[in-house]
């Protein structure tokens, strides 16, 4: 009986050790709303493949050319699966809602 008790203790210690060996990470999901407007849904869906929407909302208000450059970078450099037509929709949306009027 005493022996069994020691074995149980040993198993618990080993289990505890194994637990300490592992560390987990769950990054919370923070809800970020993009401004409502034409193209919002496509922008949200396509951009979210790689990153959360705050990669858009934190940026300084930018010109249409700057947003177009950013969309092109996502497609050409990072291979985002965005068609020409979708790229135009997204660029127009970003320029209209996160633009500086230029």
């Amino acid at each position, binding site marked *: 009986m005493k022996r069994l008790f020691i074995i149980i203790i040993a198993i618990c210690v080993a289990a505890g050790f*194994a637990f300490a*060996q*592992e*560390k*987990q*990470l*769950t*990054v*919370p*999901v*923070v809800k*970020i709303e993009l401004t409502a407007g034409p193209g919002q849904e496509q922008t949200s869906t396509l951009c979210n*493949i*790689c*990153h*959360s929407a*705050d*990669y858009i909302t*934190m*940026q*300084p*208000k*930018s010109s249409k050319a*700057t947003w177009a450059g*950013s969309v092109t970078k996502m497609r050409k*450099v*990072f*291979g*985002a*699966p965005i068609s020409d037509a979708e790229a135009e929709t997204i660029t127009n949306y970003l320029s209209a809602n996160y633009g*500086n009027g230029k």
Partner: protein
Amino acid sequence: MEDFSLTRRNLLKGAGAFVALSALGGLPDIVSAGPRMVRFPEKTDMILLTNRPPQLETPLPFFKEMITPNEAVFVRWHISQLPTAVNLATWRIKVSGNVENELSLSMDDLKKFEKVGYTAVLQCSGNGRSFAEPRVLGGQWGNGAMANVTWAGARLKDILNKAGIKAGSVDISFNGLDKPPLPTVPDFVKSLAVDKAMEDDIIVAYEMNGKELPMLNGFPARLVVPGWYGTYWVKCLSDITVLAAPFDGFWVKSAYRVPDTDCGCIEPGTAPKKTVPVTRMNTRTLIVNPMDGTTLKAKADAEIMGLAFSSNHSIVDVIVSVDGGTTWKKARLGKDMGRYSWIQFFFPWKPEKPGRYTIMAKATNSVGESQPFDATWNPPGYYWNKVEKTVVTVK
């Protein structure tokens, strides 16, 4: 951290992200509420820049501390598939490529190498990007993408010597457990030239401030390249590869590059002719107390306090001005924790008359490198280090 009173104004200064919101006209609700604070695993309440991949900024009051507590160290990831779990029973650092002996190092193996450590500033190349004018796209950091941490681990050199670098090796690349969201997104891999990698002070760190690393800061081990920007400090290190040809990965060849000029800067709004990789940190200061926009009492003792650091050379001099740069006096320097650490400076001040005062601080290192009075600029928004101005009202 008792002294954790965050005024809205201070937070706004810290959270560059919210500077953008002022452009909306009026004050939308979100600004009234201050920047968005989040608490992620093993971290304290941090300023949210981005959620996925996460970028979290350290609130300014933590910079009153000489050592940044682990839970307050900023977080910056590049590609969105972060490791969800690391088990030390199976985690290994693989050392391979142009070596005599491939290694597969467990944490126990890593701890068999001589343990070395020091205090060093970890700073993102884009710290202060939100102050760039003209504004540039990228992580809109205020001043909170830096930390002063006591690191400990094994010398990279000792690991490489154990593996035996073969003749003709050029670069060494470093990869971590993070993975790209699409196969077309380049994996986050960085490299150092062999000569750089063999420097004594580069370590594979498994301790931050005497404790294991938070997952978001690179558990179980990360590369520490003291004096150089954080982009090289690869987190959750898994692969060290010795290369016989120059490394040509995206994150070295195309990203994290600055104009090939002395300051790494060019005429604002222009494009560089030639670029080189981001490397050494420049010299900078931050005034932590009083904070910008605060009100002080006339004829009352105040103490100006801040921090200064400069890559791999000690700060030897910090001068302070309380009249917008017209006159300067030496500040007292705090405890010297080595050339990679920041140093605190203190300047007693008793403003006699009510009014608005512009406080400035300028640091110089042991080889004469200092800070510019005017902002420097480059397209990615790196290397921000201009002499800061903190404006306070005395009543």
